[in-house]
């Protein structure tokens, strides 16, 4: 019997691997609907678009790894349904695969606009198509000033295109960062010659390539049809279990009552590790500090913690190298670091340890950031 993993992205891959490093010896079946070996997504919007990296280098492990680790890969196949009563998943081809534990790592898909000519960037095929079109385009319109849109804009501009970004909100990456960081990136893009338009007012200039990055929506249908509770994601508890204790959900598709739903490599990898530990019998709650990063032009933004609930921010350093420390009721909850990797690493440790750092200390560069 063993473990069946639905979804062969970063989370699905990691749970299979972590199960083996936990010493799990029963069968592991990893099912993905794309025809490719599991790969990582970050390079798709970064090194690959810039022409610095081949698509094949995004592949996480060669085929031999899966043979050596006895991980059965089923690629290019969709899972049609979950039969919880008989504990098996049913593939679109009709085959049934039994499980003792099931991990849903179904990920998310892009939100789309009605415009059929718009391109998106989520998977390997999207990236290959976008790169091909980008190579031939001269004027690029990016709809959406979030991470993906801005990384695409940055790569397109760096390769010599005329680029315009349209963002409905009054500032960039508004969902995730403080205004001071939004403003920094607005100025950075403009300084590199990217035109940025806010709001719905001004009509965007004509373009021969439109790329849309307006967010994703989690893939919940499989869980929903199996009768598992879903909201903005597949509902999970502290141990990443769904309402069915044999079924876990991890990564972009999973939502926790307090922690919410996150779309990041860190969340995929750490939840995968935690789920693997729990399947192996360790009974571990998920407590990892969230972190993210984005590369745009020569700027690297690294985020630790979740800043949404902050009621106070202080800044350490000065542009173009500074960090924003976010506090709630005097307690540190997040740090965004711009070209200050040491602050970011310190922040990850401070947040994990439950820091008592005060806003005054955070702003004082002579005060060492140590746990």
């Amino acid at each position, binding site marked *: 019997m063993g473990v069946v993993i639905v979804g062969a992205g970063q989370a699905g891959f*990691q749970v299979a691997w972590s199960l083996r490093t936990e010493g799990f010896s029963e069968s592991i079946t990893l099912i993905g609907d794309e025809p490719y070996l599991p790969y*990582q997504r*970050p*390079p798709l919007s970064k090194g690959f678009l810039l022409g610095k990296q081949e698509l094949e*280098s*995004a592949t*996480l*492990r*060669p085929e*031999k*790894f899966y043979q*050596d680790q006895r991980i059965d890969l089923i690629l290019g196949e969709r899972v049609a349904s979950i039969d919880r009563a008989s504990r098996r998943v049913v593939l679109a081809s009709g085959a049934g695969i039994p499980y003792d534990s099931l991990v849903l790592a179904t990920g998310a898909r892009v939100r789309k606009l009605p415009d059929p000519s718009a391109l998106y960037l989520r998977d390997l095929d999207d990236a290959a198509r976008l790169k091909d079109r980008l190579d031939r385009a001269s004027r690029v319109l990016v709809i959406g000033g979030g991470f993906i849109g801005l990384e695409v804009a940055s790569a397109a501009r760096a390769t010599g295109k005329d680029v315009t970004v349209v963002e409905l909100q009054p500032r960039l990456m508004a969902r995730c960062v403080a205004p001071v960081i939004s403003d920094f990136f607005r100025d950075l893009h403009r300084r590199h010659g990217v035109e940025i338009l806010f709001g719905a007012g001004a009509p965007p200039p004509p373009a021969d390539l439109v790329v849309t990055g307006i967010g994703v929506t989690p893939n919940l249908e499989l869980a929903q049809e199996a009768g598992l509770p879903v909201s903005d994601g597949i509902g999970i508890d502290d141990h990443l279990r769904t309402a069915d204790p044999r079924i876990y959900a991890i990564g972009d598709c999973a939502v926790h009552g307090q922690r919410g739903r996150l779309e990041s*490599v860190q969340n995929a*990898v750490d939840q995968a590790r935690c789920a693997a530990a729990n399947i192996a019998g360790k009974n571990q709650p998920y407590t990892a500090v969230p*972190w993210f*990063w984005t590369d745009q032009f020569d700027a*690297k933004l*690294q985020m630790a913690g979740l800043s949404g609930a902050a009621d106070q921010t202080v800044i350490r350093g000065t542009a173009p190298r500074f960090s924003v420390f976010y506090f709630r009721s005097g307690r540190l909850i997040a740090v965004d670091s711009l*070209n200050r*990797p*040491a602050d*970011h*690493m310190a922040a*990850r*440790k401070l947040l994990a340890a439950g820091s008592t750092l005060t806003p005054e200390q955070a702003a004082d560069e002579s005060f060492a950031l140590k746990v």
Partner: protein
Amino acid sequence: MPLFGKKETANITYISHAGVKSPIAVPVGDSVMEGAIKNGVDGIVAECGGNTQCGTCHVYVEEAWLGKLPAMQDDENAMLDTTLCPRRPNSRLSCQIPVTKELNGLVVHTPEAQV
């Protein structure tokens, strides 16, 4: 252009904490991290895939080769302070070492654990 589809390679030797030697012909242009991952060498994890974000491709470089490596950037320097096994003067992140012809013969030691 490489002839007959064969890429130029450099020989890199990975030595595990237990002393197991894995000599690998790594294509020029790949990183020392990729050379390990693509060939199933244990001891390098590379959770973030080579983005200087996780510190799990930590290696100890044989001293004689240190001077031939590209200079360390700020982000690698910061990440090396957080590795599971202690940082030493010859610590590097293997994802930040692109393989060149000049690195033919490079020897790196992988730490006891990465995560």
